[in-house]
């Protein structure tokens, strides 16, 4: 058998270590800064020293510890979940326009929550209106979570597993449309429901409780090792599925595993915060430009990037029309949409 020429490698593979480190450092700085601003800024003005004292537990301040801190942590965790799933789905479907909701999880969550509100609606309209984020957080989030997971399971069932990627996308579109239709039907039954569900579909971080933060953190911790494990698989997938299999990767199982962890994360995120658009699409896309396409770095970077993006978008949602607030989903869509168009336009100019 042949042996490699006896040359010592002069350059290591991790040639781009410095730009990668500085990108991670910049993201962490933005995250810290956004977090501090998120704790400090609000309808009630609280001096910075008091914010610090409340954080350290030296002084009791429920506005900081019960409202702003879970909101900031929620934004970070939801953004990280969407960034991770977005990056993983873009790799799995080998499509830079894939987003975490591609396989129907958003439509499923919306349907689940609408169903929860419809069931609660039997009690009273006013109650239903608050049911989602106010008085019935656990049941509504559970319905949202189960709706998202159920939609993805249905898509997997319809496309006969994960082996044919195109079938997954098609089934995702079909299941999504049917669920949107059913959701619309339920919403038409009662104007109050329309309002509550509409608020949910726009996405909102204002109502995340400590319980929600705990559940999001749990799902992230549970799935993070799997994402770290799957970086190499996603890298190999850029060569095409056949080549990836020829390299020895047990692709069918790995794809199911990937869809599983992405679905859990996305379902947890939408159940807590509603359907927040563009974060899972833009964060991986921008970071791919900055860091290159190695998923072993891109996945953790997209988690950080999604967190930074959503944290600052939520600040925008609180500042732009103060003292009122915008749903954060509107901010991410209004900022993310044009920015994404700009990226595509620049790309087209670069490659002609």
């Amino acid at each position, binding site marked *: *058998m*042949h042996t*490699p*020429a*006896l*040359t*010592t*490698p002069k*350059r*290591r*593979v991790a*040639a781009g270590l410095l730009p990668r480190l500085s990108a991670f450092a910049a993201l962490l700085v933005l995250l810290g800064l956004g977090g501090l601003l998120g704790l400090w800024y609000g309808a009630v003005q609280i001096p910075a020293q008091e914010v610090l004292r409340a954080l350290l537990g030296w002084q009791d301040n429920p506005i900081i510890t019960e409202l702003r801190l879970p909101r900031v942590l929620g934004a970070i965790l939801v953004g990280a979940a969407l960034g991770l799933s977005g990056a993983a789905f873009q790799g799995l479907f*080998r499509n830079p326009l894939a987003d975490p909701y591609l396989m129907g999880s958003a439509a499923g969550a919306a349907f689940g929550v609408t169903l929860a509100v419809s069931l609660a609606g039997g009690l009273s309209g006013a109650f239903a209106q608050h049911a989602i984020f106010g008085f019935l957080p656990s049941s509504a989030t559970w319905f949202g979570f189960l709706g998202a997971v159920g939609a993805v399971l249905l898509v997997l069932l319809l496309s006969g597993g994960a082996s044919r990627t195109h079938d997954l996308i098609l089934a995702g579109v079909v299941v999504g449309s049917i669920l949107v239709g059913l959701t619309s039907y339920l919403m038409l039954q009662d104007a109050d429901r329309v309002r509550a569900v509409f608020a949910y579909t726009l996405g909102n971080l204002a109502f995340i409780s400590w319980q929600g933060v705990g559940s999001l953190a749990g799902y992230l911790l549970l799935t993070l090792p799997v994402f770290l*494990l799957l970086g*190499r*698989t996603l*890298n*190999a997938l*850029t*060569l*095409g599925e*056949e*080549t990836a*299999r*020829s*390299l*020895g*990767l*047990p692709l069918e199982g790995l794809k199911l595993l990937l869809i599983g962890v992405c679905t859990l994360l996305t379902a947890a995120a939408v159940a807590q915060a509603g359907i927040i658009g563009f974060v899972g699409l833009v964060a991986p896309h921008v970071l*791919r430009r900055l860091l*290159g*396409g*190695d998923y072993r770095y891109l996945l953790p970077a997209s988690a950080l990037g999604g967190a930074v993006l959503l944290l600052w978008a939520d600040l925008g949602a609180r500042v732009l029309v103060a003292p009122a607030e915008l749903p954060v989903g509107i901010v991410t869509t209004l900022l993310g949409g044009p920015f994404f168009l700009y990226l595509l336009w620049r790309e087209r100019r670069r*490659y002609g």
Partner: protein
Amino acid sequence: MARLPHSDGVAIPRGLAAHNLGFSYRHKRVLEGLSLHLEPGEWLALLGPNGSGKSTLLRLLAGLVKPTEGAVYLEGRPLGSYSSWARGQAIAFLPQNGGYPEDLTVEEVVALGRTPHLGLLGRLGKADLEALEWALTQTQVAAFRHRRLPTLSGGERQRVLLARALAAQPRFLLLDEPTNHLDLHHQAEFLGLLAGLRSLGLGILTVLHDPNLAARADRVAFLLEGSLLALGHPAEVLNQPLLRRVYGPGVQVHRVKDRPVVLLEE
């Protein structure tokens, strides 16, 4: 020809061998009763009209598809008995339209070829980095190792994908129409690279469309409607009666420097 005895009494050739191979897809027979083998250090060209089953045969030999009849043997053992990692270490496969990564550098793409040796988590060790250097050097792509693939010419890109396949230091290399989108110069350059790899003991199988390119191989296997029509030295296989039977009466075979040259006249 060296043959190893096999447990079921059938003599299985060394190297990568198809034994009485058959494959059906949705009740349609794509391949039937096909036997051939690829020896270490030889270049075998697979020739045949569209739909003759060339690509299917390549996928069967790569272990990506399971045969419906017969079996593929790798060095005397059924290919199905190898782990997927061991299979990936022995056989490298380069599909025709596999696509290429747009956001990875040349070096990162070639390093992906080490996957069969690394498993899911493994980091590149000293042996992996040496193999990487070797693959980059063999294919002459080391000079632009830090560039991304969209910035390369078609010929350079194809050499990078070859380097990816070589990085696993496979014993057999299966390539599906590797010269398809290359101009005349780059076709010659690419096939020259392949010819050079034979001396390292690598067994190479290429699916090719053009009989004139296949004429440069050590042996040619001619496939027609899922069966082996002819197998042997290019000068024997690429004869006028056979090619006229397949491609029509306009085919003329000439000889230049002992090599058949195929022309088609309308």
